[in-house]
C-alpha cells in the first residue's frame, strides 16, 4: 500500500499545534466538502482530508504516526513495522466501522485494529449507504444489477480489513431517481447475536442522451421542419418503449410542448413524456433551396420582429 503524508494533505508543518491543525482542516473542509463544493474530485479529496484530520487531531494517533519517522514520502510503498504502535493505546475514535470503510488501506493497516467497537455488547449492526447508477431503461423494464462495496471485515487476528463485497440487486420497474432501495440485513453485522444493519442504496440514473428526467416525467427535444410546424404533420418520435407517431398541430412553434400521457416512467400513475418542439431551418446550400427561400421572402410578407415594433 502507499504511504500517506497526513501533514502535507492538511498543508501543515510537522510541528503544527492542535489549533493549527484544526484551522487547516476547517479551511479545507469548506473548500472540498462534497455537500458544498463544486471543485472536481472534491469527494475524494475530502475523504483524504478527513482521514488526515482523524489521525492528526488525536494526540495518541498523531504520536504513533510521528513515530514512523520522517523518512517516508507520499505514495511510497509501505508496510507497517512489526512493532508498530507498541506502547500506544488508541481510544476508539468517533468513527465507526462504517467510516473505516471510507478510509484508505494505509489508515486501516495502522489504526484498523483499534477501530473495532467493543464487541461484547449486544448491539444492532450499523446501517450502510451506497449509491447505484443505473440506465434509465431499467425503470421501464426492471433489471438485476451488481454493485461492489468496500466493506470492513475482521480478519482472523481481529484486525479490521477492507474487502470488496459484491451484491446482485433487483431493480424494480418504475424506480425513480433519488429513490432508495432498502436491503434488510445487508449492513454491518451485529455483535453479541444482534441482527445486522440494513443497506440503503440511493438510485440515480445515468444522464441519458435523449431523455431528460424530472420525477416520473420525461422530456425530449423533438426537431421538426418549418413546414411540419406551419401546416401540421404526423411525425415519428422515439419513446423509451418504442417509436410512436405524433400529430404536430398546425401553427406550432419552437418551445411548445406536446404531452404523451403515460409514456413516462411506469407506475401508479405512470409519468408523462413531454416532446419539446424545436423548429429546424433547412440549410440553403443549393440553388434550388435558395430559390425557395427567396420565394417565401417575397410572398409571405413575414416579419418575425413585429412584436418588437421594428
Amino acid at each position, binding site marked *: 500500500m502507499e504511504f500517506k503524508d497526513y501533514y502535507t494533505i492538511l498543508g501543515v508543518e510537522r510541528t503544527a499545534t492542535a489549533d493549527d491543525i484544526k484551522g487547516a482542516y*476547517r479551511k479545507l*473542509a*469548506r473548500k472540498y*466538502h462534497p*455537500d*458544498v463544493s*463544486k471543485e472536481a474530485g472534491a469527494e475524494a479529496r475530502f475523504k483524504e482530508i*478527513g482521514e488526515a484530520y482523524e489521525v492528526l487531531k488525536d494526540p495518541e494517533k498523531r504520536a504513533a504516526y510521528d513515530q514512523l519517522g520522517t523518512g517516508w514520502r507520499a505514495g511510497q510503498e509501505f508496510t507497517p513495522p512489526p512493532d508498530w504502535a507498541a506502547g500506544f493505546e488508541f481510544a476508539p475514535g468517533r468513527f*465507526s466501522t*462504517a467510516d473505516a470503510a471510507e478510509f484508505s488501506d494505509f489508515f486501516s493497516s495502522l489504526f484498523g485494529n483499534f477501530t473495532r467497537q467493543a464487541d461484547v455488547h449486544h448491539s*444492532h449492526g*450499523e*446501517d450502510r*449507504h451506497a449509491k447505484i447508477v443505473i440506465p434509465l431503461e431499467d425503470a421501464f423494464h426492471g433489471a*438485476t444489477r451488481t454493485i461492489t462495496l468496500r466493506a470492513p471485515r475482521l480478519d482472523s487476528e481481529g484486525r479490521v480489513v477492507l474487502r470488496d463485497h459484491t*451484491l*446482485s*440487486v*433487483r431493480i*424494480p420497474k418504475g*424506480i*425513480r431517481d*433519488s*429513490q*432508495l*432501495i*432498502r*436491503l*434488510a440485513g*445487508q449492513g454491518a453485522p451485529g455483535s453479541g447475536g444482534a441482527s445486522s*444493519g*440494513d443497506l*440503503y*442504496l*440511493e438510485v440515480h440514473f445515468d444522464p441519458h442522451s435523449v431523455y*431528460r428526467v*424530472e420525477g416520473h416525467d420525461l422530456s425530449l427535444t423533438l426537431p421538426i421542419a418549418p413546414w411540419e410546424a406551419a401546416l401540421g404533420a404526423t411525425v415519428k418520435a422515439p419513446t423509451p418503449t418504442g417509436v410512436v407517431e405524433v400529430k404536430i398541430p398546425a401553427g406550432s412553434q419552437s418551445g411548445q410542448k406536446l404531452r404523451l400521457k403515460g409514456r413516462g416512467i411506469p407506475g401508479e400513475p405512470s409519468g408523462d413524456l413531454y416532446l419539446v418542439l424545436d423548429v429546424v431551418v433547412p440549410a440553403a446550400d443549393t440553388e434550388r433551396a435558395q430559390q425557395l427561400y427567396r420565394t417565401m421572402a417575397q410572398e409571405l410578407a413575414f416579419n418575425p420582429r413585429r412584436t418588437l415594433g421594428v
Partner: protein
Amino acid sequence: MEKEILTGWVIGDEGVLTAEELARACRADVSWIAELTEVGVLDPEGKEQSGWRFCATDLTVARRAARLQQDFSVSTEAVAVMLDLLAEIERLRDRLKRAGLDPNE
C-alpha cells in the same frame, strides 16, 4: 453456485421510515431527528413523534445534515440554513440545465 439476487423495499415520496429507523440510518439519536424536525429540516408524515414516518428525501437530507454538522461543528439551526441554501442552489442549477445552460459556466 448461483448468486442470490436481493430484493429490497423501495422508499420514495411516501413516509415509511420511523424516527428510530431514520436515527439508526444516520447513526444519530432520535432526539437529533426530533431537533431537525422542529427546525423544519425534516417534514415527516404524522403528528406525534411515535407516529412520524419519513420518506427518501428525509433520509438523504438527514444524512447530509449529519455530515455538515460533524464536519463543520455547527448548530442545528446553522445546518438548517446551509441546507436551505444548498437546496435553492440545486433547484436553480436544475433549472439552468433544463434550459440547456451549463451551470458551471
